[in-house]
């Protein structure tokens, strides 16, 4: 029978995805970039929308929220999963509102106008069933998927606006976005890249080999030499794992030191981050204890090996995303366009 089969098929897929997320985080499975994670999450959500049983928008949102909670619990440090879920929830709300007939402009005025007049939570319960809701939502999710596929190219297209000839650019670790960005600029301009290797996993080595194969003059330095070399650097271009709501970053270990050194020499720090990395979290104080990898432990010694760093927004000069460049002080506004405030807590 089609019904149960579809359901079991769906649950199987969800379980497989959760399993992958779990493995990917502990380093045992294949390391995947956040773009792939985002795409897979969105594809899975589309499948849920298509195959799960729901009658009204509220039901669908409930299902997605539940699945979303499980997914984020499987791998708390992979924030793109949560981001995609919130995007889809916002899509559902929008489609519902459009089906109901209220104009989109009224919705956008909500934030300032309704704050003064109503002051309360909107009493939408999303219970009204609409026939056209399902295909609309699926179409909107498809648009989201196309947007996701084009993010790296959109960012790379802006490279020539920011890199001039004979520059010395510094970067840290390995970011596919930055790699594409630099390779795109290298087609027309000649510049020099210094890569900090980012111990102990030394992803910087891969980045350097990849860049040098594209013909870019690359130098690998150790993390300890970042400040020593910074005086000769013109720009620092980095990728990040997450962009936080206040404009700060949660990036790979060593980025905070790099940002401080850049600030000291007044070197601009440019962050290449696609929009799906924007997360409504703010920095929690117990942030960094979420994700550790313990190295060789001698019996009497504590060893710490944090994987991520928090970088405050004052140290960042510019964000380059697939929709253009922004200052860190503008991030909160972008966030209100992508996510609905009620979805910030899943």
């Amino acid at each position, binding site marked *: 029978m089609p019904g149960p089969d579809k359901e079991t098929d769906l649950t199987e897929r969800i379980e497989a995805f959760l399993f992958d997320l779990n493995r990917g985080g502990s380093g045992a499975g294949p390391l995947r970039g956040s773009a792939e994670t985002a795409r897979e999450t969105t594809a899975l959500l589309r499948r849920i929308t298509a195959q799960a049983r729901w009658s009204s928008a509220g039901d669908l949102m409930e299902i997605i929220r539940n699945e979303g909670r499980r997914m984020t619990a499987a791998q708390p440090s992979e924030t793109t999963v949560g981001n995609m879920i919130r995007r889809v929830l916002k899509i559902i709300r929008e489609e519902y509102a459009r089906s109901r007939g209220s104009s989109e402009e009224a919705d956008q005025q909500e934030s300032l106008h309704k704050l003064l007049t109503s002051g309360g939570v909107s009493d939408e319960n999303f219970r009204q069933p609409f026939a056209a809701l399902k295909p609309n939502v699926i179409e909107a999710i498809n648009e989201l998927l196309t947007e996701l596929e084009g993010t790296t190219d959109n960012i790379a297209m802006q490279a020539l606006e920011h890199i001039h000839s004979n520059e010395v650019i510094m970067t840290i670790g390995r970011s596919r976005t930055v790699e594409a960005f630099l390779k795109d600029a290298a087609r027309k301009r000649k510049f020099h890249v210094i890569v900090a*290797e*980012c*111990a*102990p*996993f*030394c992803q910087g*080595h*891969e980045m*350097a*080999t990849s860049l*040098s*194969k594209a*013909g*870019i*003059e*690359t*130098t*690998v*330095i*150790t*993390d*300890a*030499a*970042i*400040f*020593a*070399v910074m*005086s*000769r650097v013109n720009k620092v271009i980095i990728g990040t794992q997450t962009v936080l709501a206040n404009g700060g970053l949660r990036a790979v*270990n*060593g980025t*905070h*030191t790099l940002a*401080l*050194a850049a600030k*000291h020499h007044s070197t601009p720090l440019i962050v290449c981050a696609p929009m799906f990395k924007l997360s409504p979290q703010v920095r929690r104080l117990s942030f*960094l204890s979420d994700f550790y990898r313990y190295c060789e432990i*001698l019996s*009497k*010694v*504590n*060893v*710490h*090996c*944090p994987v991520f*760093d928090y970088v405050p927004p004052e140290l960042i000069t510019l964000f380059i995303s697939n929709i253009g460049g922004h200052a860190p002080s503008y991030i909160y506004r972008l966030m209100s366009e992508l996510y609905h405030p009620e979805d910030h807590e899943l």
Partner: protein
Amino acid sequence: TDVIIESSVGYFTEGPERKDDIVKAKQEGKELTKEEKQRLRKEKKQQKKSKEKKDDKPSRDSEKEKKPASAASPAPQTPTQPPAQKAPSAAPAPVPVPASETPSAADKPAKSKAELKAERRARQEAERASKGKKGDVGPQAAPGKPKAPPSELQPVVKRLPEHVQVDNPEVLKKLAKKLERQQIPLRSDYGYKVSLFSHLHQYSRKAPLTQQLGIPSTVIHPAIVRLGLQYSQGIVAGSNARSVALLHAFKQVIRDYTTPPNEELSRDLVNRLKPYISFLNQCRPLSASMGNAIKYIKKEISNIPSQCKEEEAKRKLLNCIDCYINEKIVLAAKAIAKYSIEKISDGDVILVYGCSSLVNHILCEAFEKNRKFRVIVVDSRPRLEGREALRRLVQKGINCTYVLISAVSYILPEVSKVFLGAHALLANGYVMSRVGTSQIALVAKAFNVPVLVCCETYKFCERVQTDSFVSNELDDPDDLIVTRTGTTQLEHWQEVPSLGLLNLVYDVTPPDFVDLVITDLGMIPCTSVPVVLRVKNVDQ
């Protein structure tokens, strides 16, 4: 002669008047004062020199153009000058500033006494220099005429050392010739050098200099060969360890030394040491502390009176070296530990970087005095010296934590103090230390954690430097290849044309990041380093 001006040209123009005085004095039978005698001597020298200078003035000019860096210094001794001219030109060298002729002539009478004193000192320096330091690779105080106002400071303008002029082929040729004369093999550079550092050497650890020496080596003492190998392979590392090892090796050399007939010990021994120093320099560039130790030894040797018997002289020298080690390193460490323990309070969390013998000593002493604290050891690739420090501290029973340098901004909120060691303290207050030290100081400053640097006074150096590029050491680039998980991404980096690996050894920390420097003379701010240097110079 119109371009080459000396401040003593004033003497020439006033010559006739002074000469009259002197002649008058002679005729009157008065004894010439010391100053007047000197003036006479000076004038004779000037006359001789002006004839020489007319000949090589055109060549001197063209060399000056080639070396804009040394034009800034008032006494350019361009390295391409043949060494034979060094002794005579060591006394007043020309100052290439044309405009100063009239003012110098005008205030000649006011300056003369102070200028005389300075000239006398300059000549003494020159004589000492020509005696002991001919052909020395290290920075040399080129005695130049002070055009400066009558201050008591000597003109200390150093000739640029060879190891930061690798991109100059003439300097390399000169070095090769010198090494050939001393029968020491020349070490060749290895691997692709990053363009920013093309002026420095980059050697490979797999090709030590000793492979090119014959056995037994007749020129170099075996203790020195062993020491050179230990340096180049990194077996002896750390500036205190290297200096002590050097001094012990020299003690062995002195014990085995016999004065050849018709030679004086004070001169011959110094000449014997020169090829050893070149050899060690080729194995690994000398550190500031080693340079100071060598200067001290050479001074002691040349001060041995000629009537001293060989056995007694050797005994004296060995005693001097022992005293030096005891005073400058062992006792200094005790004094510094005493001062530092005042700064460590109970409940402190202290951050240290890498393996500094002095900082380890301080922490062990503080622990023995029952201070309650815990230590965070920060380490960095590729040397991973922090593991050695960790081992030493854990053996003593100190509570330790270990992180890599990229985690410093994560762990700093817990830290109450940062203790750093130094390789050298420069005269402008910058601290030269292992690469990564400046980074730690920067992050500590951002978190408002006090930074204390511990350094003995024998590491103080008269050089000035503002960034980590102009003078540094490049270690073997292949060290960066091996990574922790065994993956070697960069194994074939030499085959990729646009890929370079950079393995810096030192960096300089600006004085605004450092809150306090603890030395054996007390606790001083970073900016007082030139004061200490001056006090030391006056003592000597």
